[in-house]
């Protein structure tokens, strides 16, 4: 295709505070409809908003972590439009002076610029009941604190858009500013996409809404790029509009543009007096910032000898990174050598078997697994000391991750430890050599595969409990003696 996609994302993040942005109502998810409301978030006559300072602090924390310049004056505006889920018929938001501007997110090797970050209140939720000629409104969500993060149109493909979202989500989770749960709607995403020919002006952009998962972001963008491409190839124009993604059909649909041709009549919210943040207040929040994924990955690579890819993998979620570090700290105590080989083994487990099981079970975080860092170290130690083979270790993991049992105890209880007693292996090896003269002949003729056959026989004889390395070594020695 001769067209290049230009993509920007708008992320709405629900900040993890205990109370709403302008009143004291609880923010617990899943409460009975209209049970977490008060005159303020219901927009009753006469009520006034009071800014929740925790919301501001979390907003600044996020803006700083994204490298934004913080606006020293906090000003809110009213965005006026009529809708039944908006009890005041205006939304308190930020307009020309957003909380943060000009930040960026490192996605792989690319730097995706963040245009702005601003605070606003959420609206309620309309519920349309099947077969009923009425709409219901649940105002529990009304007044929930939101942070909108708007990227520049720096993303060049659906895959990159997804990667940006994943990286952003990891940063937000590191910051502990939100639970980032897309299913609960704590992280929502709209996209803007247009096509252009390389080195030409930007094309007409289309906003695509209703994206409920990383997957639907990718699918919607792929579809929309294809749709716009076909239009342009056919010499038609792309209309500037807002489209909704239909997840079931995998396509975007135009909304009747007339209904959404808003003039929001923004003006400064007179009920919230603008106020200034001091340099010091901002510095205090900056100093409390945790180590972020990119920095942590660099440190893991430098300190533990992980490859850049492994370091990025292990730090992709804060829980996994914490898990890795907990393991690293306990290495010596578990009888392992604190050296790159051991660290790599730990990372391999986290990115391999553990990730696989989490994926199978659809688990978001490593902490949801019944498998502690201590358990992992036991497993690594069992392999390292030759007590069990790597293959056996995988089997043990598959069992204990279900039962929650300690791997060491599991191995002991079921007698799974490898035979490392050299004397016993030597006896078995001698028996195997006597029983397989053909293979011994082949080995003498220089066929290395014969040795593997003999090792296999030895393993069978010991019901798999012999250490494969030791078995091979012993056989090779005996055969050499036999040669002479």
């Amino acid at each position, binding site marked *: 295709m001769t067209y290049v996609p230009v993509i920007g994302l708008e992320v709405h993040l629900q900040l993890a505070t205990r109370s709403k942005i302008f009143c004291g109502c609880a923010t617990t998810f899943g409460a009975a409809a209209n049970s977490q409301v008060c005159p303020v978030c219901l927009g*009753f006559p006469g009520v006034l908003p009071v800014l929740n300072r925790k919301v501001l602090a979390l907003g600044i924390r996020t803006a700083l972590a994204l490298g934004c310049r913080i606006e020293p004056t906090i000003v809110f505006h009213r965005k006026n439009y009529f809708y039944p889920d908006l009890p005041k018929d205006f939304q308190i938001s930020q307009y020309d002076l957003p909380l943060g501007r000009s930040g960026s997110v490192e996605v792989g090797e690319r730097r995706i610029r963040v245009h702005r970050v601003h605070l606003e209140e959420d609206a309620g939720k309309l519920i349309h009941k099947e077969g009923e000629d009425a709409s219901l409104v649940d105002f529990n969500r009304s007044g929930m604190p939101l942070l909108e993060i708007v990227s520049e149109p720096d993303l060049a493909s659906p895959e990159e858009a997804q990667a940006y979202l994943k990286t952003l989500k990891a940063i937000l989770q590191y910051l502990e500013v939100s639970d980032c749960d897309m299913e609960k709607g704590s992280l929502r995403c709209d996209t803007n996409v247009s096509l252009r020919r390389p080195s030409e002006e930007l094309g007409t952009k289309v906003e695509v809404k209703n994206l409920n998962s990383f997957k639907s972001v990718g699918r919607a963008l792929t579809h929309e790029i294809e749709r716009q491409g076909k239009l342009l190839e056919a010499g038609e124009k792309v209309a500037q509009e807002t489209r909704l993604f239909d997840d079931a059909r995998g396509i975007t649909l135009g909304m009747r543009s007339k209904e959404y041709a808003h003039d929001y009549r923004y*003006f400064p919210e007179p009920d919230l007096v603008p106020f200034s943040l001091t340099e010091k207040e901002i510095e205090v929040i900056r100093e409390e910032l945790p180590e972020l994924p990119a920095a942590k990955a660099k440190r893991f690579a430098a300190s533990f000898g992980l490859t850049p890819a492994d370091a990025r993998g292990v730090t992709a979620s804060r829980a996994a990174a914490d898990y890795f570090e907990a393991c690293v700290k306990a290495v010596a105590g578990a009888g392992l050598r604190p050296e790159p080989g051991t660290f790599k083994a730990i990372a391999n487990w986290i990115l391999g078997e553990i990730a696989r099981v989490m994926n199978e079970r659809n688990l978001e975080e490593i902490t949801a697994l019944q498998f502690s860092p201590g358990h992992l170290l036991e497993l690594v130690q069992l392999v390292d000391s030759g007590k069990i083979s790597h293959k056996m270790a995988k089997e043990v993991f598959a069992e204990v991750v279900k039962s929650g049992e300690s791997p060491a105890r599991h191995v002991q209880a079921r007698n799974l430890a490898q035979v490392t007693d050299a004397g016993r292996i030597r006896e078995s090896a001698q028996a195997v050599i006597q029983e397989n003269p053909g293979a011994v002949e082949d080995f003498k003729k220089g066929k290395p595969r014969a040795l593997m056959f003999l090792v296999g026989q030895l393993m069978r004889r010991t019901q798999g409990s012999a250490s494969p390395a030791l078995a091979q070594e012993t056989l090779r020695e005996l055969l050499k003696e036999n040669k002479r």
Partner: protein
Amino acid sequence: MTAREIQAIYQTGKAAPPEIAETFIKKIEELQPKLKALVWFDPEFVRKQAGALTADGKSKGPLWGVPVLVKDNLCVEGVPTTCASKILARFRPPYNATVIERLKAAGAILLGMANMDEFAFGSSCEYSSYGPTLNPWDTARVPGGSSGGSAAAVAAGMTPLALGSDTGGSIRQPASFCGVVGLKPTYGRVSRYGLIAFASSLDQIGPIAKTVEDCALLFSGIAGFDQRDSTSVEAKVPNCLEELKKPVKGLRVGVPKEYLIDGLDPEVKKALEAALEQFRKLGLKIQEVSLPHTEYAIPTYYIVATAEASSNLARFDGVQYGYRSGEGDSLLAMYGKTRGQGFGPEAKRRIILGTFVLSSGYYEAYYAHALKVRTLIRRDFDKAFEAVDLLMTPTSPTPAFRLGEKLSDPLTMYLSDIYTISVNLAGVPALSLPCGFTPAGLPIGMQLIAKPFAEAELFQAAHAYEQASGWHKREPKIR
């Protein structure tokens, strides 16, 4: 009977709250048909409060047993609060405004709800969906507005005290038309939580009373920081009842030269000049000052106030509470019919004006520009207060006008607020008190304006003048 007199009666033990309550219940029942000052009144509601006070008579708050009438735009839990609008007919708030909480804590007895112009849009009380309140001094005339019900009731003795709200003169102008004292406090002095907003950056709740002392008493009962209102200010509220007795000699009073306008009624001018003479006798120093941007106050006000109002009144949409039209088969039609049928003509006019000035393409020319002029007007006051302690002006260019006289011409109605509007734009406190009567017996009011948070100085000068002039002793003969 003033609030101070009621307190004196309680002190001697000659009467208890239920008896005082009965006195006012009788007075309201007698005069309400003639003046229509109240829009909601239930004697049992009053008796219940008075009875409860006697039962737990131990902790006596500063307004213990004193009746207070409430403007119909202040939320009282469970009591109809309708802003005199059809769109809020039968609306009963689920909470109390902060001022109501404070009155209750101070031991006051709420008498009922007072009439007003719909959503406080008006200067005559004629834009009430309940019909107009009549002026106790001449029932062919308006009581002023928008707090017309509150001012008329105080003047007629139906209540010793009343709460009003003032966005562009809505306490002071009716106070002057009805010959009573009304204060618009400094912006941020009284919590607006529970005041159904007209224009958030201009609205203030304030007291209306028969005497300056009573006005100070009620002010002390409602003023002070409230964490539920982000625009309320953490400033100490002085004991105004003590402060007002302080000597006034030497206070400097400025008279803005721009306030001598063509429309100023000669009787009002004469009364003001006499009042200035009285001030001189009291030892105050009079000088001319200038507020050069005065001529821009009315257009600035009608941009800022209507812009905020258009947004504040958006919530009356028929979805959650208040009136909903049964007509219309779509969401948009429901909104249109509900608001079309629920709002009166002045409310619609102001919503349309405010929507227009905020619209894309007009915002810069109107709203943004008005904010700049507002800053200039505020600076005028800052500058004037470098030279003087108080400013003195007429409250209104004319005494109370006849019912219907200005209804056909909204602009003339807007102009009657010329002396009061700048004060709200600047956020400074101002008080209106009687300074004479026309030969026909209509009260004339003068306005005193002070620096932010200097309400005590307003009370001092007003009290000294009141005691010297004795205008407050006149009573209307209600026919």
